[in-house]
């Protein structure tokens, strides 16, 4: 007797369809699994055998062969338990085979027959819907996540017994209700910290607004206790809300990493990730034998906050270069190439020196050489990808206790950000540029045109401040964003001068 069950595995954040074939014939009693399996897939045999026994089904003393095809794809993960069990039962004639057509099954099985959740349900179900399957059978815990996908029926199952009974029409499968993206938002909005909680600090706040409006990367330099982390946490709150596609993409990544919970089955808010500076390159970019998404992918469409930038290992930071250019991470492995999206906004913070108090010489005990050494830890190529750099001042006690009648809320700032972004979208309509920060150097003369007066102004600044070509380009991009926020088509002198104030510290400056 022979049967086929459809299932799938996750590769990167995409899914690959897999077919589980089971054959039960006379011969030496043996349970064999083939098809380029990793250890955890091979173990499915023991789990399935025991689970079936505990549900009251003994495997017949026959030769049982399971094949997972296509054979050239390496199978890994625990999602094959349930499809294997169903395939065996179908081959034994316990489940009617015709019910398995156009049905995709995933799930891990416990020894007691309970069905456990797996990682990456969302990409699997999405793919199944694209392939026009009729239905998906997923563990109950994953049902909410799977319900985000439209155009496919879903069965949430809890135990193996339930599966068998369901297929034999003794009971009806439980079908979860479809989730609406945006639905949950109306019900309860996750507590996002608000900019109105920060007293003063207008300078940094303004820089944040500009950075977000043009999706520029941001570096904050300031002493300990200047509220750098506090500010960074509030940045996702002024980014425009994610579109449905964006939210789905982010949710997929979290699904693959298994970071979705039942109560929070999908990512309603833009992610904010702040990995500790001891993180490894693999942890940041993604990796492992079977590569999974790293922090930069988890920050997709959100904010990646690197606190104490100078304390990160150099090779860890260097990894950021390619993803920041291409907005995705490409990992090559023996089993194939993996690609994870990583379109994030980088927000970094660092102290001005090792002790953190430079240039307050009464408190700073670093020599000039030490300050330079500290600043040099950040490589120039990374700095070249950061458009805005801003000082943060230590918060004085008076500022802390001052009752400020009105501080702008994140919602107010967000409104302006959205307006500035709309201007950008109009300007870049028909191109693949989305934000000012992504204007290629070759097109700067087109999008950031300066009048004669402004050109003269920039020339004198260029000479006076000994700018480099790269920093000049960054200033133009930022000035474009400031002009957009101002509602101006032309870049004016005041836009340029503000952009110059936010210019990044370059090599010359480091050596200051």
């Amino acid at each position, binding site marked *: 007797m022979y049967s086929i069950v459809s299932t799938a595995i996750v590769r990167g954040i995409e899914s690959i369809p897999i077919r589980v074939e089971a054959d039960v014939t006379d011969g030496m009693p043996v349970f064999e699994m083939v098809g380029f399996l990793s250890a955890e897939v091979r173990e499915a045999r023991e789990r399935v055998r025991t689970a079936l026994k505990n549900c009251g089904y003994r495997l017949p003393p026959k030769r049982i062969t399971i094949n997972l095809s296509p054979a050239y794809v390496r199978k890994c993960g625990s999602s094959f338990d349930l499809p294997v069990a169903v395939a065996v039962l179908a081959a034994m004639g316990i489940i009617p085979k015709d019910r398995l057509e156009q049905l995709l099954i995933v799930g891990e099985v416990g020894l007691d027959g309970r069905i456990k959740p797996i990682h990456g349900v969302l990409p699997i179900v999405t793919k199944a819907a694209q392939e026009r399957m009729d239905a998906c059978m997923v563990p109950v815990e994953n049902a909410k996540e799977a319900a985000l996908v439209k155009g496919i029926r879903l069965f949430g199952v809890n135990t193996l017994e339930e599966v068998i009974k369901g297929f034999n029409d003794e009971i009806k499968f439980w079908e979860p209700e479809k989730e609406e993206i945006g639905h949950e938002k109306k019900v309860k909005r996750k507590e996002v910290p608000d900019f109105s909680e920060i007293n003063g600090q207008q*300078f940094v706040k303004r820089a944040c607004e500009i950075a977000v409006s043009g999706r520029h990367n941001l570096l904050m330099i300031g002493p300990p206790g200047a509220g750098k982390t506090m500010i960074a946490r509030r940045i996702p709150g002024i980014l425009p809300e994610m579109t449905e596609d964006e939210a789905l993409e982010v949710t997929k990544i979290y699904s693959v990493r298994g970071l979705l919970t039942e109560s929070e089955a999908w990512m309603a808010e833009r992610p904010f990730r702040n990995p500790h500076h001891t993180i490894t390159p693999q942890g940041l970019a993604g990796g492992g034998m079977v590569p999974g998404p790293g922090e930069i992918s988890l920050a997709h469409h959100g904010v990646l906050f690197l606190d104490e930038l100078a304390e990160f290992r150099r090779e860890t930071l260097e990894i950021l270069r390619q993803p920041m250019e291409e907005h995705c991470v490409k990992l090559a492995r023996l089993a194939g190439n993996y690609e994870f999206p990583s379109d994030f906004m980088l927000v970094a913070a660092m102290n001005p020196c090792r002790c953190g108090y430079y240039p307050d*010489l009464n408190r700073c005990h670093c*020599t000039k050489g030490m300050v330079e050494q500290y600043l040099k830890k950040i490589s120039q190529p990374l700095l070249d990808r950061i458009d805005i750099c*801003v*000082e943060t*001042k230590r918060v004085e006690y008076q500022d802390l206790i001052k009752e400020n009648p009105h501080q702008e809320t994140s919602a107010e700032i967000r409104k302006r950000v959205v307006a500035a972004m709309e201007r950008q979208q109009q300007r870049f309509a028909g191109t693949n540029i989305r934000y000012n920060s992504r204007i290629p150097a070759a097109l700067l003369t087109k999008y950031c045109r300066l009048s004669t007066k402004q050109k003269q102004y920039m020339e*004198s600044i260029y000479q006076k401040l000994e700018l480099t070509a790269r920093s000049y380009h960054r200033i133009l991009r930022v000035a474009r964003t400031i002009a957009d926020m101002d509602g101006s088509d032309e870049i004016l002198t*005041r836009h340029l001068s503000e952009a110059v104030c936010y210019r990044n510290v370059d090599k010359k400056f480091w050596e200051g």
Partner: protein
Amino acid sequence: MKYKYWLACMAQMAENIGTGKVEKLFRFAGSAGVLYDMSEKEFMQIPGITEADVKSVLTYKKAWNLEEAWENLKRSGLYLVTREDENYPKRLLYINKPPYGIFYKGSLPPEDKKSIAIVGARRCSEYGRYYAKHLAELAVKAGCIIISGLAAGIDGAAHSGAMAAEGETYAVMGCGADYCYPRQNQSLYQTMTQKGGILSEYMPQTKPLGKLFPQRNRLISGLSDVVVVIEAKERSGSLITADFALEQGKDIYALPGRVGDVLSGGCNRLIRQGAGIIVSPEEWFKDLEIDLANIVVSNAFSKKVLEKDEGVVYSVLDLQPKSAQQILEETKLPVDRMCEILLTLENAGFIKEVYKNYYIKIHE
């Protein structure tokens, strides 16, 4: 000349022989040549020289290859001036333990010009850096020369101030005069070999060792008529220079700092102990009896040329770096306006960004 070189290196090379004993030897013999040819018996007659010293001198003499050493000196490109020479700096003759020989690059400080030493902390604030430079510039314009130690911070600022006014400036090194220490002052070093000079009592190729620096400070004060201390902590090398200056009877001035300012602690104490106080450059020059009347101060700046808002921003700045956020709070201007003004002022040379978004004013 070969003998002179031999004697000039003795303080450093012979065991237990220091500048003081070299002085005794030289005074007795009168010239290096005579000394070189003296016998052990003759050496013993020199007052204050023990048997051990004689042995040490003779060992040194044996080990020293006159010809080879002389070739080395020529190759190093350094000049040597000794007590036997006419052009030995006269000012040094009156200090305790004058070095027998001085190695130098460039030229020696002229005797007829007023010589001002400006010394201070390596790790200095913009306030100190500014005044070191400013005072040096004015002094040079008034016809003085500037002596310092080529260290980072105040010393370097004093040298570069003198250079900016195209004056002569001299550095006394704590290492060989052919060795630029610290490296970062390479360009100052190069310029000084053209206009001014690099001086050292230590033989060529001497590495900068911590123990050599306090001793060279006596030469900085010795070569000058007036010593100015800018930004010295309560314990610092600059105060050693001030002590030497006191011993040598030079005028000492200190630039005051705020009470509680660690960097100016030493300066303020000097003032307490009776050092001259620099209240303003003009008054200081009056004290020194230097006429500033003919000097064109390149301060063609007046607040009148500033717009109202520009004046507001300018007036909240001083020589202590102030952050953009603080300027914003004090001026109550909108961010974009403040940025515009800061840049205009910086472009016009009124203010300077010394660290990321920290500004100081650079004109009085």
